[in-house]
């Protein structure tokens, strides 16, 4: 009798476990199964089209890394992303600066940036500024259809650009399009941007979220934040918050070479260790390598392949010169920069993957001034102390907020210890992420802000975001003498060489001013399995466009 009752209890427990398991069915495939590439379809192998301007389109526009493509389409690509941009698939409204990788497979842009940083065609086949720089005219592709069947044309482009530049709608992209006064449809596939000031950076900026084209019919979709409707190589099928985005190949994609896989799974894996383990165990094909936690050797020991490229990102200490008057003195800021042991931070905290940098543009990017190396303001605490004494700034004290994430707090504390050596007291306030924005950018109640700027596709965007008097990351509205003129010169320059010359000068000016204390430029590194090819990294930190990745058997 008693045995019978025990057995009953066990049976009930087992049944409950099975019911729970049954309810928990997941669409996640076993990586071992889904990772195996099928050969369900052989992609067309027509030569890349040539644009009116004679420039190549599609995958040929960007260099690829990680091996040669085999030319066959098949399998499922599973990629792990460490930032939760997945929560917002509306590129004009998205607020997370680290969320672009989620959007690229679904949204085409008007332009794209290649591995050398040059602007290349995408939905726009060519573009031209007017002689007097008052207009920018884009010729658009005529063979593009959004995922919901809406055709992409000049009207659709205008609707998107108008939406992206209207602050009242809540579009964060409006800051990128301030120079755009109006948008005109000139022909079925021709759209003209009327400019209030010269804006040579626009073609590059339209390779970013501001240039992502959403189906106008989906603007009012209540679920646009979670179900993207673009014209990209993948069509979203299911999204589970903070877990996974499932997608399938866009069979009508305009570039016959893309995509290279039948199905795509973008998984959100917050923890860097879990992400690396998931890649090593074969659960996912690849993901970002957190250089603060792992070295290249760690990943290679696990049998993984690394793909990297320079980034436009920068670890920096933003300053509020209004709240701390001593910081309004450039000599004091330079002294603070000289008190920072960039090499020590690079070695101790970044596995030597964060290049010490005294200028705001990283090495490898065209605005980088080669005459300014990391010793431009050498690590010299003695000299720093002397400068501070000369400037009468011997009791500088401020509080720096930083994200309440252990790695950021550790970096800020390293900085705190180094500044203490020269008599500068920097208090560290680990702060929840929402408060960072309200504290430094909105309410402007924070003295300083230690963070990672992920970079931008164009230097003009970085400059306008950080160093102009009206820039959000310059809450003290400090005006660097001459920067507005240089910014305008750069915007008026039409060729990259001309722009490079202006930006070299600006890099010099910003290195002398140190309005934000530059520390180091982190590398973008992806760790992935050897059977994955065509991994394309973008210049913004850890941004990857998985659209062209091929999974080989």
């Amino acid at each position, binding site marked *: 009798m008693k045995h019978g009752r025990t057995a009953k209890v066990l049976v009930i427990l087992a049944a409950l476990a099975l019911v729970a398991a049954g309810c928990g069915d997941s669409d996640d495939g076993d990586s071992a199964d889904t990772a195996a590439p099928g050969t369900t379809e052989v992609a067309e192998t027509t030569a890349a089209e040539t644009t009116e301007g004679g420039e190549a389109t599609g995958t040929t526009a960007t260099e690829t890394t990680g091996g040669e493509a085999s030319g066959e389409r098949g399998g499922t690509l599973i990629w792990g992303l460490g930032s939760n941009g997945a929560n917002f698939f509306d590129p004009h409204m998205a607020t997370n600066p680290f969320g672009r990788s989620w959007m690229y497979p679904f949204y085409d842009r008007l332009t794209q940036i290649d591995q050398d940083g040059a602007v290349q065609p995408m939905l726009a086949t060519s573009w031209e500024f007017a002689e007097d720089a008052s207009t920018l005219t884009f010729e658009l592709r005529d063979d593009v259809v959004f995922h919901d069947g809406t055709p992409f044309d000049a009207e659709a482009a205008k609707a998107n650009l108008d939406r992206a530049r209207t602050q009242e709608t809540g579009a964060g992209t409006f800051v990128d399009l301030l120079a755009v006064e109006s948008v005109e449809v000139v022909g079925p596939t021709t759209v003209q941007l009327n400019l209030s000031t010269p804006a040579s950076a626009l073609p590059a900026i339209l390779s970013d979220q501001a240039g992502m084209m959403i189906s106008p019919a989906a603007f009012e979709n209540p679920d646009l934040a979670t179900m993207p409707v673009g014209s990209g190589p993948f069509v979203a099928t299911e999204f589970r*918050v903070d877990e996974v985005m499932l997608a399938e190949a866009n069979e009508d994609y305009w570039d016959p070479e893309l995509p290279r896989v039948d199905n795509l799974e973008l998984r959100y894996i917050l923890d860097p260790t879990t992400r690396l383990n*998931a890649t090593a165990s074969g*659960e996912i094909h690849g993901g970002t390598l957190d250089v603060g936690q792992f070295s290249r050797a760690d990943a290679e020991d696990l049998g993984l392949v690394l793909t990297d490229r320079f980034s436009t990102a920068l670890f920096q200490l933003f300053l509020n010169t209004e709240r701390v008057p001593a910081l309004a003195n450039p000599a004091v800021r330079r002294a603070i920069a000289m008190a920072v042991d960039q090499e020590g931070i690079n070695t101790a905290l970044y596995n030597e993957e964060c290049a010490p940098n005294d200028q705001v543009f990283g090495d490898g990017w065209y605005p980088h001034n080669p005459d300014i190396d990391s010793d431009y303001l050498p690590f010299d605490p003695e000299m720093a102390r002397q400068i501070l004494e000369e400037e009468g700034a011997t009791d500088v004290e401020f509080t720096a907020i930083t994200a309440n994430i252990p790695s950021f707090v550790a970096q800020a504390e390293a900085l705190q210890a180094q500044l203490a050596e020269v008599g500068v007291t920097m208090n560290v306030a680990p702060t929840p992420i*929402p408060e960072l924005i309200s504290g430094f950018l909105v309410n402007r109640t924070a003295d300083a802000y230690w963070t990672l700027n992920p970079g931008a596709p164009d230097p003009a965007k970085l400059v306008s975001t950080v160093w102009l008097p009206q820039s959000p990351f310059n809450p003290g509205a400090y005006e660097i003498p001459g920067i507005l003129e240089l910014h305008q010169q750069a915007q008026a320059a039409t060729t990259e060489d001309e722009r490079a010359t202006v930006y070299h000068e600006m890099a010099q000016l910003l290195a002398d001013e140190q309005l934000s204390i530059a520390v180091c430029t982190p590398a973008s590194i992806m760790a992935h399995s050897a059977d994955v090819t065509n991994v394309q990294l973008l210049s913004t930190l850890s941004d990857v466009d998985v659209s062209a990745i091929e999974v080989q058997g």
Partner: protein
Amino acid sequence: MLRLAARRLLKVVPLLLLVSVIAFGLLSMVPGDPAVQIAGEFATEEQIAEVRSDLGLDRPWIVQYGDWLGNAIQGDLGTSPFSGVSVSTQIWQRLPTTLSLLGWALALSVLIGIPAGTIAGWRQGSVVDRVLTMGTSVGVAIPVFVSALVLALVVGLKLSWLPATGYVGFSESPVDWARHLFLPAVALALTGAAEIARQTRAGIIQVKNEDYVRTAKASGLMTRQVLGRHTLKNAMIPVVTVVGLQISRLFGLSVLVEQIFNIPGIGSRLVTAVFENDVPYIQGTVLLVGIAIVAVNVAVDVSYGYFNPRVRAA
């Protein structure tokens, strides 16, 4: 038994209300303004105010609480501010995964802990007892995040015996479902099994020296009968209490383990919700887990009545 259950249930109503107040109170305890975060870094004060108004954050606390509780009772826990996805949907999608993991972990804890504790207690002082006692000391001492990482790295990655990360649904492949859950369940179960074993051992030692057990032995009953009918059942009350505590503990630890093994349960989502300041999700999960823990405690209380008739009469 029914009267006992009814009495216990009545007592938990105020407790559940307190749980709901605390869960909702998280909103005011969490620093920062969700409206600022949602509106974005370039939003104007008017836009931030509009978002705040849309979210109802500008109303008095008690009104917001009343609204939230009323909706929660009807199964509506609100929506995550960034994705706009219903919290109930998110929890419903993820809860079965977490319950699978907890079910496995609890089953392993009990299946290892009770036999090990029974053997150790019945053979008190023997070599087996010493080995098991030492093993349980180690089990209790190892933090879950250490055992989880070691299992993932050694058994999962180095030896490749079982998957180091990930989850597969039961209906998709029962075998893969079990393979993916085994390591995280072991990581969760180690401490629980050790604690249950220690409690069982102590209970057995206490009961086996009682007069009625000696009498049962003297009357010639087989060891199995003496152990099963007279000893184990009477030693179970403290063990059931520990099992109940383990369930509460497993809910908490599953947050860590789901994160390490990349299991899409309610715990791993809770971590990201904290980073995102997704207060509705945090509130919903805290409420749900709070209710689950209260329910487990009631079940444990009621089970005392099964194991000890004197409790039923009390």
